[in-house]
């Protein structure tokens, strides 16, 4: 008999490492159910779902229009800025700059700009447009990189750079840019909704008050509007029309901006670390106190939630994608599951987290589940699409055997690549659950803003940006180790 032992494939080893890290985090994480009567709240929610409560028309239309306008204008602006940035993405400084601005969640940018500008539309716009610019730059740069391998230059070698770009690269990548920009619209609408939770007059504003008052009918109505808005994108969204839409949105949102320069200056002053402003405060005690009470616990909780949510995202998508795949189920089942999945991934995590929080109380459980379900629904959809493209043999097995031996091995690399991309996204999104009171870095940042300790807020934002950049780097290395260097075709937000 051969003495050969079975070498575990790299992808399996990687998965085991992921699972082990999540289990380790599980030990330290608080995943308890705190509320005594979760069912009571559940029935109230269910009652709300069946009796949506609509706002008066003017208010409803205004919330809809503002959600749309913020999303559209911010995406258009950031696509433009991202395009310009991507041309210089090979420069290390630009790359790092893009990584830092996208590492800070739009909620934090929002909190920052609301401090500086008040509840002016510009605050909301910048909050979305800044991180999105960083994301656009990265994705556009990747699209260009992928297209470059396709053919060698056929233009006269002395042509200037601008002509080279528009005559050679642009025609090849335009379609990809356009489809990604339109795709990003969906994310933009969700972000603009989420910013309502910190005061912007979008759908999220009413969602938050609905949750706060336990008015689940209002929540349901607002959610339905968001679904309709997102579903309508494919009807009206055209790349060519984006400048027109952005113009109309800008006109609609425009409001005179009176910047009180003394106020801004004093705020900027407040953002510099306390020991710098106040000679009575020593550097080390200030920093060590902050570290032990906020930075360290915040970072640790962020990491715990991220790792557990990441693995649960994977588990959720591996279990659910067969429901969407033609390798396993007939059309009626697939259509029904598809509808459910679209709803799950269109629902902003903050809503899911809020619902779970009300059901189970403030532990990490709501955060982890909200992140896992939202992201899992996205990954599941991508996996199903990928599996639909497989051509199996006439004698391919069925059911669980087909899943294990035919489909899973063929899509597993892609699956890990998707997960690596979700890693950074999930960590960014822990910010959201922070403002709901779960003690991630987002929570401490939110509290620092509330108590006007802007220097602490800025420091914590920097820490969370640093963590994001680290996770991004680890994910990149993991992908390289698994030879999954290429970006998956669909880039989800």
């Amino acid at each position, binding site marked *: 008999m*051969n003495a050969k032992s079975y*070498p575990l494939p790299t992808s399996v080893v990687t998965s085991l490492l992921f699972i082990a890290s999540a289990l380790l985090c599980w030990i330290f994480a608080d995943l308890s159910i705190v509320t005594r009567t979760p069912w009571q709240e559940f029935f109230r929610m269910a009652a709300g779902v069946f009796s949506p409560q609509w706002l008066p028309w003017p208010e409803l239309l205004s919330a809809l229009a503002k959600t749309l306008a913020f999303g559209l204008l911010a995406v258009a602006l950031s696509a433009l800025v991202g395009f310009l940035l991507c041309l210089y993405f090979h420069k290390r400084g630009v790359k790092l700059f893009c990584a830092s601005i996208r590492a800070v969640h739009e909620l934090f940018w929002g909190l920052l700009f609301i401090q500086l500008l008040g509840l002016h539309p510009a605050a909301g716009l910048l909050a979305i447009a800044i991180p999105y610019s960083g994301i656009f730059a990265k994705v556009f740069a990747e699209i260009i990189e992928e297209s470059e391998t396709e053919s060698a230059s056929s233009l006269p070698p002395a042509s200037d750079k601008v002509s080279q770009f528009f005559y050679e690269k642009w025609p090849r990548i335009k379609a990809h840019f356009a489809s990604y920009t339109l795709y990003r619209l969906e994310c933009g609408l969700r972000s603009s909704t989420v910013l309502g939770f910190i005061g912007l007059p979008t759908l999220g504003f009413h969602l938050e008050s609905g949750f706060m008052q336990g008015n689940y009918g209002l929540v349901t109505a607002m959610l339905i509007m968001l679904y309709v808005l997102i579903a309508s994108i494919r009807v009206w969204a055209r790349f060519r029309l984006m400048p027109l839409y952005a113009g109309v949105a800008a006109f609609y949102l425009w409001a005179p901006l009176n910047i009180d320069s003394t106020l801004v200056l004093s705020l900027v002053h407040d953002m510099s670390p306390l020991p710098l402003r106040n000679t009575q405060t020593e550097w080390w005690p200030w920093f060590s106190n902050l570290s032990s009470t906020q930075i360290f616990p915040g970072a640790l909780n962020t990491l715990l939630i991220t790792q557990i949510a990441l693995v649960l995202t994977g588990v959720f998508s591996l279990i659910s994608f067969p429901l969407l795949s033609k390798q396993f189920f007939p059309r009626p089942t697939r259509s029904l599951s598809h509808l459910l999945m679209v709803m799950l991934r269109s629902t902003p995590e903050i809503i899911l987290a809020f619902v779970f929080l009300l059901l189970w109380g403030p532990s990490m459980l709501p955060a982890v589940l909200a992140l896992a379900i939202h992201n899992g629904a996205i990954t599941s959809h991508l996996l199903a699409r990928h599996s639909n493209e497989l051509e*199996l043999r*006439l004698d*391919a097995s069925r059911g*669980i055997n087909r899943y*294990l*031996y035919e489909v899973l091995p063929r899509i597993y690399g892609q699956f890990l690549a998707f997960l690596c991309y979700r890693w950074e996204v999930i960590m960014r999104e822990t910010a959201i659950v922070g403002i709901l009171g779960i003690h991630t870095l987002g929570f401490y940042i939110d509290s620092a803003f509330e108590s006007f300790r802007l220097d602490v807020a800025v420091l914590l934002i920097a820490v969370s940006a640093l963590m994001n950049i680290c996770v991004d780097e680890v994910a990149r290395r993991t992908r390289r180790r698994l030879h999954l260097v290429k970006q998956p075709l669909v880039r989800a937000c």
Partner: protein
Amino acid sequence: MNNQGSPKKLLSLADETIAYGSKVVLDEINLHLHDGERIVLLGKSGSGKSTLLKHLYQTLVNNDETIAWIPQRLGLTEKLSVFHNVFIGRLDQQSRFTNLRNLLWPAQEHRQAIHGILQELSLAEELFSPVGTLSGGQQQRVAAARALYRQASILLADEPATGLDQGSAKTLMTLIEKNFGSCVIALHDVDLAMSIADRIIGLRGGKIILDALAVDLSPEALAPIYHDANTAP
């Protein structure tokens, strides 16, 4: 020979026509298969061999026969090891638990069984290599190993000797002869065909133009399969 007396009839096709849209790929096929027959399908590419094989596969499976199948496009799971790809041959004959367990960690008994088959095909060294890293000829032998491992009595194979050198092709034919009671194999190599077949079916343009016992056939009798009778090709 075990088709003396009155062997069981496996399948009968009467005036069967298969068309994709307006394109007729199999034209009024009449064919009877009996248990114990070793049939080789000969014909140029595009003559309908693959379509006929697929049709035979479907019909036999509908009749609840267990079939070993080697398609032209092998359809192996490239990320999985040779062991797993061969193991797939018997997934439907084992419990889900066994299948799941062996996906994660191959059990000793299955390793031995599959190692034995691979030895006969000179592939034992590659037991745990991912199939995607093997050469075309090696992959062809993996597909054959899967068919052998399946332990079916009937084999349907579409060009199973593609990419194999003469020696390996001969070995494969011997293994097929030894392991399967009946088989239908599409081949393009006439010598190889004559070495295994006891019945030859010639296809041309979707029609059966020859159906005879191999012993009765001379090389000239096979010519119409490949060349036009009167005009130069």
